[in-house]
């Protein structure tokens, strides 16, 4: 039976996103097939003609921001419908691109529009330099550390991490996390720019 977004409330969808990567994948596939959503985001991207914003990049980052919020915030909820929320993020991302490319200060109208997206924009990977560093880190820390740090980054409790990653207890996860933090710290020692960029 095919999965339809319309059959679920946004709160249900958020719960399912947290539930498992498999559920998350089902929801993502359904969102990616939503032509209304795509067409709406295309219209937003077109508004920023001349900045050469890539639709796919904005679309993907919009979904990443949504998923991240759903995963990392226990009390996350959407007051409007899902598409309106996603349009808000896409608009915000385009404005940020515009700001980055032309070093432009947002106008009052734009700022008001930004606030209406119900959330703050805090994607690390929107910055190309940070993204490159993250790629490099991913290749250096190993699978286990990657898993633990990603879940810590998503604000999972140590007990939840232990359950989801099959560790014997939350204490074991704490030790593992500390070991991984030391690995990252050592990376930062060898790459001083990393701390400078990510501490902000």
């Amino acid at each position, binding site marked *: 039976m095919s999965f339809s977004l319309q059959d679920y409330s946004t709160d249900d969808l958020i719960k399912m996103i947290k539930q498992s990567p498999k559920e998350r994948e089902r929801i993502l596939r359904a969102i990616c097939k939503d032509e209304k959503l795509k067409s709406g985001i295309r219209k937003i991207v077109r508004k920023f003609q001349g900045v050469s914003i890539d639709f796919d990049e904005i679309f993907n980052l919009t979904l990443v921001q949504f998923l*991240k919020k759903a995963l990392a915030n226990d009390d996350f909820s959407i007051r409007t419908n899902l598409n309106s929320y996603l349009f808000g993020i896409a608009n915000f991302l385009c404005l940020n691109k515009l700001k980055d490319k032309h070093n432009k200060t947002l106008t009052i109208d734009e700022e008001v529009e930004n606030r209406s997206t119900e959330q703050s924009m805090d994607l690390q990977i929107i910055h190309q330099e940070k993204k490159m560093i993250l790629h490099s880190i991913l290749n250096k820390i190993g699978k286990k550390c990657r898993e633990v740090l990603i879940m810590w980054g998503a604000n999972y409790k140590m007990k939840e991490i232990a359950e989801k990653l099959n560790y014997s207890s939350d204490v074991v996860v704490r030790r593992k996390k*500390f070991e991984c933090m030391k690995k990252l710290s050592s990376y930062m020692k060898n790459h001083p720019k990393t701390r400078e960029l990510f501490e902000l």
Partner: protein
Amino acid sequence: MNYADHIDDYMSGALSGDALKQFENQLKVDPELKRIVDEYSALKNISTGLLEMQLLQEVEEANAPPKTSIPFLKASLTRLLLLVIGIALLTFLVYRFMSNVNDKKNDTPYAFAYTEPIWPVVRDNESSNLSKGVALYLSGDKMNGKALIREASEEDRILANYWLAELFLMENQLDSVRHYLPNVDANHLKYSRINQIKAWIEN
């Protein structure tokens, strides 16, 4: 107290009382712990960045064309390969079958390909021993017919041997055919026929 276990609590302000004091005292003597605490914000942001990278990968995969196209392509290629192998096998079998047919054809030239020669005409007074011998053989007196041909003069020897070969060919006595069949040059009257007989008996 394992201080590494309480970094998150310390950073979130959840530590208090003695636990907080102990942790702060440990920070003064444990440079490794202090370094992690100092870099906590960057470490957390990096971990959040790693989460975003993971999510981006999931989104890109969900947004990519269905993966089924690759297995389908693989299945198509497998089917194509099987078809080519099937055709090759069939071609080989047909070739083998035709070869066998040809081999059998060559093994039994008389059944498939033998045609009688144009026998010499016998005229009462003018006929040579060769013509008479052949006529005698064809009338049923095989022994005397062959004997008469063997009596041919030396100048008729090649032609005599040729007719003997023809008669042995009719009897399917191939060794005798090989013995009598003469080698002639291309201008000889029986050149084509002799070559045809050679082809039959060699196959």
